[in-house]
């Protein structure tokens, strides 16, 4: 029984890693209508910039804050000088451009910082907290708490604020948004910037656990995508819940379903997606929506 509960707790903390990237994917999708494959790569770049500052003696919190700000600027620049050319064309092309961006960023990280694993210090201690025979590290708790806070902020941004509404409007229909006086181009830049800044937070949260390499988030990206689809593209709460579900069910399936086992547990999120989408095409929490990947 203790193992069972421990597996659930482990699943939740793994799920939090997926959730961190998934939230950034949701943000950029809500703000630009795109699935951004480079989201993980931008988070890695942010983590490297924080790591570089650390190695120059900047305190951790300051380094992470600086990387968040830098990422905001980087995201805005990417939108302005790269994505803008593709924003009104074929969405498939724009997605492939983000794939190219991911490749480029990975290459730049590898070139500047090598492909070696770098240790990235955590904001939270690795010490375990034990409760009812279940132990969990303070790092996992801290990561999860930050993610929940970010999730609530995002939810509030989209549901309640004028900026959130404007970002979504621009993503859905830039022309009508302009007819209503929305500064479309600036809002697109802000959308990319915010997503990149959120990615920087995600990067700093998960880098201590995954250790910093240029391809650190490649494997997590697939899970994050699955969480995004499962949770519903428009709902931050939905994707975080979906990411946790994936993390937990994956563990339980691996241990308790012999046919699946540890090797095929990666199928779990997709089975889950299949089952859920049959019942609710818009995802667990999403509203009915028209999506292009």
């Amino acid at each position, binding site marked *: 029984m*203790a*193992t069972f509960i*421990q*597996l659930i707790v*482990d*699943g939740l*903390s*793994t799920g939090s*890693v*997926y959730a961190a990237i998934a939230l950034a994917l949701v943000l950029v999708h809500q703000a630009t209508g795109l699935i951004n494959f480079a989201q993980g790569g931008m988070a890695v770049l942010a983590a490297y910039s924080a790591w570089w500052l650390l190695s120059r003696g900047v305190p951790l919190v300051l380094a992470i804050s600086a990387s968040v700000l830098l990422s905001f600027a980087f995201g805005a620049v990417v939108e302005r000088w790269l994505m803008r050319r593709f924003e009104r064309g074929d969405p498939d092309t724009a997605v492939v451009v983000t794939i190219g961006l991911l490749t480029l960023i*990975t*290459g730049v990280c*590898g070139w500047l910082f*090598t*492909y*070696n*694993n770098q*240790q990235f210090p955590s904001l939270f201690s*690795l010490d*375990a907290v*034990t409760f009812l025979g279940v*132990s*969990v*590290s303070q790092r996992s708790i801290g990561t999860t708490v930050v993610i929940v806070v970010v999730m609530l902020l995002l939810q509030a941004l989209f549901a309640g604020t004028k900026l959130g509404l404007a970002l979504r409007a621009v993503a859905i229909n830039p022309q009508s948004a302009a007819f209503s006086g929305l500064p479309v181009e600036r809002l697109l830049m802000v959308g990319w910037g915010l997503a990149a800044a959120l990615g920087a937070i995600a990067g700093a949260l998960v880098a201590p*656990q*995954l*250790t910093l*390499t*240029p*391809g*650190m988030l*490649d*494997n*997590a990206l697939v*899970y994050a995508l699955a969480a995004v689809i499962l949770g519903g593209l428009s709902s931050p709460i939905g994707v975080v819940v979906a990411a946790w579900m994936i993390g937990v069910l*994956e*563990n339980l399936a*691996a*241990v308790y379903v012999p046919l699946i*086992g*540890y*090797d095929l547990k*990666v199928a779990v999120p997709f089975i889950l997606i299949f089952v859920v989408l049959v019942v609710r095409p818009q995802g667990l929490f999403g509203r009915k929506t028209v999506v292009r990947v």
Partner: protein
Amino acid sequence: MSRHFRSRKALVIAVASTLALTFAGCSREGGGDGATGAAASPGITDTTVRLGISTPLSGSTAGPGTCTVAGVKAYFGAKNAAGGVAFGDGKTRTVEIEALDDGYDPQRAKANYDSLKDDVFAMTAGLGTPTNRAWREAAIADEVPQVLVMTGDPLFSDTQESPWQLGFVPIYQNEGEAFGKLLVASGAPHKVAILSQNDDYGAGYVEGFKSAVEGAANIEIVDELTYEATDTSVDAQITQLSASGADVIFNAMSLVPLVVSALQKAQQLNWLPSWFLPSNTSSPGAVVEPGGGAAFPGIYSVSFAKAPASPAFAGDEDVQTYLAALKEHGDYPDAPAFPHCQWSWMVGATLEQAFTTMTEPTRDDFMRALRSIENFEAPLMLPGTAVTTTESGQPAVPTVVVQKYNGKGYDTVESLG
């Protein structure tokens, strides 16, 4: 000649084709004759010899992949700077390295081989089982040496199956076996949990380990799990294994981040077994220290190379020469984070050893020379290990020694505890 020449029967009916055959005749000649006369193989002249490497320099295995090039480049870079390598035929040649990136994609590895095979004398040092297997048969057909490659796949060390191949690093089975023997020899009862990578690497380790502990009354394997190289976490596996009550974990894992987090996770669960790590993921600085290895009763690994980061070898002459050359000629300014850098340096030394006994500038003679090295102590090798290429079924480095983490680096141990 690299390829078997076949007489051209006139088959082609079309006039255009006949015309083209003439062109073909032109373009097909020219390749093949080396500058030293009819006997020389491609890629070798009186003054130079060219070696090819196809290895991952991008993607998830780029870290160790970069090392496989850096070591060889550093070794021959230093030799070239000192005038070159004296070959057994009395000529001194400089060694050129042509390294290509395959991104761990078998298809690209084959493409790299295709583009290199007529320009290089031999292929060497490349990392990866599927990427080396992808062109193994082609290399046999073309009679191109594919030697001292970085894979523990036993196929490459089987002289019958792979006449033009030779693996460098110990086959995975040997490494697993070495630790198994140590465990059996301890005499004390041990419960072992196994966590291995779900591929030939993990399976090879486990196979070797099991063969060593088979029938031993004091060893019981209580649980055995796998993980995928694409997983982001092995927390669930560690949780499950911790419940097995094992006091030893045999952990055949090739990914540094996952090893680090496995060590951390076990501590969190307050499960502190003796820990076995493979040779390629036991770096003191990059793995054990960040993983908090000191908390465990013992971290064991197998090795045949001196770890430059270990204080025991900080003043070692071999190590210092190596580190200086790596920086200067290997295009590798940082402290090497993977043992593959050291291994590939040894590959360089082993190649030189073969070169010095080569009497003809041919691939055939090179293979003969390479296959007749015995007990060669390459630089950076640990006492008790040596390069021996005369034994079929075994790679160039057939033996490893078991080591135990001492808080900074590793000490060779004869027994558990």
